């Protein structure tokens, strides 16, 4: 599973620590997520997607669905 966290974070000029504090995790967790070394829980994925005001499937991409889907 890939994700667009780094790209979306850069668009908002948001640091890893800033995002971590907003979604209630440690900065290390955001680092792991961005490097693809950890798949988040549904709760965390939801919180991150909600922060970026996007549906989960536009933030977290499965290998067979590499292009983000349009809206819900």
């Amino acid at each position, binding site marked *: 599973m890939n994700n667009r966290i780094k790209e979306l974070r850069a668009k908002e000029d948001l640091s890893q*620590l800033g995002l*971590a*504090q907003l979604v*209630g*995790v*440690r*900065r*290390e*967790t955001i680092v*792991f997520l961005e*490097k*693809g*070394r*950890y*798949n*988040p*829980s549904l*709760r*965390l994925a939801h919180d991150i997607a909600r922060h970026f005001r996007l549906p989960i499937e536009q933030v977290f991409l499965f290998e067979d669905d590499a292009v983000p889907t349009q809206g819900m």
Partner: protein
Amino acid sequence: MKRTVLMFVISALVLVSLALWALKGHIAGNAQEMIMGAIVLLVVGFAVYLGISRLRSHRGGETAEDELSKTVMRRASSLAYYISIYLWLFVMYVSDKTTLEAHSLVGAGIAAMAVVFVLCWLGVKLFGMKSE
């Protein structure tokens, strides 16, 4: 924060106990005791590292423990438990072939379990949990 303080207190108690044991002259200074001492220091070092990491997170305004750190601990624990079963089978096998006393073997087994846990934790941390 309470758990962090507890980690530091337990680490300090272990170190003080080790120092007292050494000062009382119970340590003969042979290789076996040196290895045991090194393992105790490794485990205490690991606990202190975790404590400092939690303290740093707390001071930086982050949560001290989140789903990743809990998952790493859970995964490392289950892996260490699985490996430890085979470790104790090995200890049982070795017990017939060595002159070591039973309490030395049990001590070595417990120390090896601690080392296995630290190694599992490092492995999970380094290689991540992509498959989960």
